């Protein structure tokens, strides 16, 4: 593939010099196979180059990440016969953040006979993403979704069943069919364990070397190709070099750039951002999803937010009091004084309107002074009618563990009074730029799962991240990586190559630099301040003025960080503070990239809501003439404005329509 080196910025911005005007054509080649949409993947597989079975063991592949994407990829690649090294920062591969997904996984099985099809799942996903995703990738995703369910069943994933023994489905937002497969409220856990078990089997077979408590530090690029990585052992602090033929990053999302999110505490941007520093383009970083149904913030001490699965919206109804400042208890407010605002505004999708739309509607109601709870930053999610209709037992069977979790955290009983919920940061559509092969612009570096940008455009539909992670890992990467290995003549490299030495020295210097500061403020305090700026200025509503302000304040915070962060201890031992500080340092730089992206994209689309661009009823106003492209940013140095490469999005099969759920 050809990638032009990013040229000079086309238009410069007063405060920082980033390209906030029109981007330039980048020559980014997405390598989409020719032919009709429905045949592209089949054709790719028919035309791809293969590696002889006995030669496979001569290739080494490093897979960073053991979530759905990384775990499934590492297991499948090892099954094919490749030598695989698998890495995760947790103490066990099983604890990857995918374990926390609750609600379910989509697949176009049409078991319910309700009109589902590959085309419909494809269309829902493209439309859900507000027409900012690549047609060909999304179609393939819908196509392989069916194989995922079969594969998981074969592994023993205990999906929910009907009485007749058939697989059960539930509905999720943004769709009018029932295509979501689930395991109670622990779907992510069960799918992750399936992948983890497949991976464990390969460890046992000697084809995967497992490295847990091991953090990615840097990418090693030799002759323009990804040829290895540097890692840090979290227990001994030791930096290690790993040489390989292919590097796969499946390191998940960067939600904690907002500090508070539904993500695990260790989720980070470090792996993808450091690859970005080495030349990998970062696509659509400002496309971040705010999930409508989370337990509201209760105070400044809070370290994370808890999601209440979207599946609850199958039976729960969302409302606020009709009148401002109505402080009666919810049970005392009669129906005619309640505003079921999603049902009112979006009658055909009702409580199952997509996430970006539902979140904004909740924010609007609260901004209007009709929010509930002590802070006024919450809306009700009410099961009264469902309990009356179906009985408490049925509701307990469907959502028991979620109700318990809510009761545990808030000390309130959701069977008796409605839950209080508020939107929270949940998912990152943005990620490393990849082509149809899921390869970044650095040959040999692949990105899978939430770490790439590929399938969800400007907004992801519920139950589609699990689908994408497993599609990438089980069914796409094993093919495209094989094709890469077969079509490139890779010279052997050793870890004493200068590029390894340089990358290791670079990693060491970054750690030493943090340890040298010896300041007075914990990494956590900086993290919280960063999160506040990003949430306020680059959260649910964004404006030119706010983003410009963020771009002034972030460099100041970064500077203060490097002058006053406290990282006690050494780099040669288990050091939680050091670990957190390295993540925060990368988030600080990355936050600026997000704001640049949000500022440059002078339109509203999906989760990216620029207050300057809305219809009279408050709906997002897209600008297809000027912004129907992927923004792929190139790194220019710390504190330097990034450069923008645009990959135009060409729609040959769907009509770019105003996205309506009314």
């Amino acid at each position, binding site marked *: 593939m050809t990638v032009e080196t990013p040229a000079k910025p086309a238009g410069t911005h007063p405060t920082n010099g980033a390209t906030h005007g029109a981007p330039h054509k980048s020559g980014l080649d997405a390598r989409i196979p020719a032919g009709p949409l429905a045949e592209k993947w089949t054709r790719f597989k028919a035309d791809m180059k293969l590696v002889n079975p006995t030669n496979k063991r001569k290739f080494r592949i490093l897979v960073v990440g053991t979530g759905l994407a990384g775990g499934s990829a590492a297991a499948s690649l090892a099954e094919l016969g490749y030598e695989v090294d698998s890495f995760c920062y947790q103490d066990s591969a099983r604890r990857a953040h995918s374990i926390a997904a609750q609600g379910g996984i989509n697949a176009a099985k049409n078991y319910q006979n309700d009109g589902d099809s590959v085309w419909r799942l494809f269309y829902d996903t493209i439309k859900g993403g507000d027409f900012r995703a690549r047609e060909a990738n999304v179609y393939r995703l819908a196509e392989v979704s069916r194989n995922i369910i079969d594969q998981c069943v074969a592994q*023993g994933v205990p*999906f929910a069943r009907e009485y007749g*023994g058939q697989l059960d489905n539930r509905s999720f937002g943004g769709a009018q069919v029932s295509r979501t497969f689930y395991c109670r409220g622990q779907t992510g856990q069960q799918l992750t364990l399936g992948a983890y078990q497949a991976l464990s089997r390969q460890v046992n077979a000697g084809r995967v070397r497992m490295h*847990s408590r091991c953090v990615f530090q840097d990418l090693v690029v030799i002759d323009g190709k990804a040829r290895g990585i540097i890692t840090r052992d979290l227990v001994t602090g030791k930096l290690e070099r790993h040489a390989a033929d292919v590097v796969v990053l499946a390191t998940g999302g960067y939600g904690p750039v907002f500090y508070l999110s539904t993500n695990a505490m260790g989720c980070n941007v470090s792996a993808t951002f450091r690859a970005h520093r080495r030349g990998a383009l970062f696509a659509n970083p400002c496309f971040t999803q705010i999930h409508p149904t989370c337990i509201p913030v209760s105070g400044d*001490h809070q370290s994370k937010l808890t999601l209440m699965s979207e599946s609850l919206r199958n039976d729960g109804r969302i409302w606020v009091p009709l009148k401002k400042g109505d402080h009666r208890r919810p049970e005392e407010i009669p129906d005619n004084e309640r505003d079921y605002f999603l049902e009112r505004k979006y009658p055909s999708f009702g409580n199952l309107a997509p996430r970006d739309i539902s979140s904004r509607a909740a924010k609007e109601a609260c901004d209007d002074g009709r929010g509930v709870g002590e802070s006024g930053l919450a809306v009700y999610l009410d099961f009264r009618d469902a309990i009356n209709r179906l009985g408490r037992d049925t509701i307990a069977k469907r959502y028991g563990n979620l109700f318990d979790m809510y009761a545990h955290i808030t000390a309130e009983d959701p069977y008796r009074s409605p839950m209080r919920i508020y939107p929270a940061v949940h998912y990152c559509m943005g990620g490393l730029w990849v082509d149809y092969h899921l390869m970044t612009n650095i040959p040999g570096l692949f990105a899978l799962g939430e770490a790439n940008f590929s399938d969800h455009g400007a907004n992801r539909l519920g139950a589609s991240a699990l689908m994408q992670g497993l599609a990438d890992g089980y069914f796409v990467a094993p093919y495209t990586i094989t094709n890469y290995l077969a079509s490139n003549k890779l010279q052997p490299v050793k870890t004493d190559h200068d590029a390894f030495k340089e990358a290791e020295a670079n990693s060491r210097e970054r750690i030493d630099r943090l340890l040298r500061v010896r300041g007075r403020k914990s990494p956590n305090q900086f993290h919280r301040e960063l999160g506040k700026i990003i949430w306020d200025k680059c959260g649910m509503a964004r404006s030119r003025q706010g983003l410009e302000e963020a771009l002034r304040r972030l460099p100041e915070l970064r500077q203060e960080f490097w002058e006053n962060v406290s990282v006690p201890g050494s780099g040669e*031992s288990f050091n939680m503070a050091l670990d957190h500080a390295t993540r925060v340092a990368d988030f600080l730089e990355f936050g600026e990239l997000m704001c640049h992206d949000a500022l440059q994209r002078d339109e509203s689309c999906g989760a990216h809501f620029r207050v300057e661009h809305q219809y009279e009823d408050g709906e997002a106003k897209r600008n297809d003439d000027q912004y129907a492209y992927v923004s792929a940013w190139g790194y220019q140095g710390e504190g330097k404005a990034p450069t923008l490469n645009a990959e135009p999005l060409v729609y040959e099969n769907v009509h770019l329509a105003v996205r309506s759920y009314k």
Partner: protein
Amino acid sequence: MNFTLHVWRQKDRNSPGKMEAIPAKNILPDMSFLEMLDIVNDDLMAQGKAPISFDHDCREGICGSCSLVINGRPHGPTRGTTCQTYMRHFKDGEAIYIEPWRAKAFPVICDLVTDRSAFDRIIQSGGYVSVNTGGAVDGNTLPIGKDTAELAMDTSACIGCGACVAACKNASAMLFVAAKVSHLGLLPQGQPERSSRALAMVNTMDKEGFGNCTNQYECEAVCPKEISADWISRLNRDYIAAAGSPGE
């Protein structure tokens, strides 16, 4: 609220450890136990002292990372994980004792962090269905009764935290092994390897230095996912059948 924490401090695997008294000040009842430790750690770091190390990640009771013995009980006073324990369950002014999981098979790495990789090795020895990616038949070809699916789900809800081991006076991992063996053994997909799986996993458990089960039921009492010790009887039956069958 204010507390005096008595925390196990240990520099690394090879250094001796000891309890250290550390004050926790200005704590709110709505804080989670780990948020309380965050505040204490911020204070320690502001003084240039090493923070208290502990494992944690999801902070919502599902990843199985968090693993503290609080006042002698794995995961503390309430049912659920450490990260789901709230300060409202403690009395203002109380002394709180915080220790790591204690078991030969889980050596301490630093302070409250232990090495639980023995659990991974147990799974590696057989905790799966041997099926490669690709070629699976349609998911509905194999009907599975709702009740069976529910029971399988009950057992596969295990989060692999290791509280069962920490609670057991023999440091036995029987509940952990029983949960996985039963999950797969209940399902038709898991039948072909049912015996060999039970055998391999129990043997690995023994090799890793976990103790025997003497029916104390401490494991069940602390399991955050309420996995029943009855599954251990099922494991015993599977194991005896496997150990007795010459073919396996």
